[in-house]
């Protein structure tokens, strides 16, 4: 039997899981503060624009978006199966494509900053 190519999808899932575990709560707190009207300094247009202007930050942001979307997509794929949705290939294609599309969009927007 052939060794599975699942590592391609699992590798970024594990990386994304780790990244989101470490980072996402803090990011959410930032936007939550903004949502509550206490916008942190970084989220002011000028600062954020300047921050996202650097190549390093662009790369980091794109990477974060990719890993976040990918790990969520992978988990959702499995959850769908757990919940009885048996069209795994279809679900997988849709979800991973969505994650890739989201990443591509983020890259596009970043390139415009």
């Amino acid at each position, binding site marked *: *039997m*052939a*060794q*599975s*190519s*699942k*590592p*391609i999808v*699992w*590798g970024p899932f*594990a990386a994304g899981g780790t990244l989101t575990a470490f980072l996402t709560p803090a990011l959410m707190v930032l936007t939550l503060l903004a949502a509550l009207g206490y916008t942190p300094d970084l989220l002011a247009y000028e600062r954020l624009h300047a921050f996202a202007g650097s190549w390093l930050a662009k790369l980091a942001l794109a990477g974060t978006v990719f890993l976040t979307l990918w790990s969520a997509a992978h988990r959702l794929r*499995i959850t769908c*199966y*757990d919940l009885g949705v048996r069209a795994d290939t279809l679900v997988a294609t849709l979800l991973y494509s969505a994650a890739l599309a989201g990443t591509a969009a983020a890259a596009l927007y970043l390139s415009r900053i």
Partner: protein
Amino acid sequence: MSERRVELEVLRYHPETDAAPRFQRYSVDCREEWVVLDALNHVKETLDPTLSYRWSCHMAVCGSCGMMINGEPRLACKSFLRDYQGVIRVEPLAHFPIERDLVTVIDDFMAKLKRVKPYLIPAQARALEQGEYRQTPAELKRYKQFTLCMNCMLCYAACPEYGLIPKFIGPAAISLAHRYNQDSRDGGRAARQEEIAAAEGVWECSFTGACSEVCPEHVDPAAALQQVKIKSTVDWYLAHLMPWLKK
């Protein structure tokens, strides 16, 4: 010596007469210190000789008496009556076909066990005259926990993914492969990867972790499976991104 009347609700199924399983109630006088297996034996001896189930050691080492007790996969010989109140519901292990009463069909598991090559494939052959391989206590410790599996299959009954995807090789068999992979004497990982790193191998595991929670031997199959996933992923990326590393 205190006695207690215990109500057992046992799933009965007889292929020659029943279309589907049904519950049967038994009310038995038990001693407080008994385990569920003692109660079943008592039923068989005094109330109903037609009840079928598996057991042998009565000391939680042979792995034959796995059943669902109040919905949890457990060893009947290590489930104490004193830990249960009210009616105790006894069913065959989940996810396995029922042969009869509490006896399940385990062909699937036995076949998977064989597939993962759970035996030492020596890294370096050694003649008997050369004596034992050297293995330090630290090297022993690296895999020891995974040798403790008694093939009771409680983990299969607990794992939802096995229930959903019967092809999944499952926690115990993969842990056993991992046990040999981790053994300092072994060189057979590549051969085992063909099975355990396949789609039906470790990749059907979603890290539910239920397997480890119910394992009576604390084998921690969930840990073994995640370790296999990481290693297989590293393998894959090395092989595809740095193919020149391949011998």
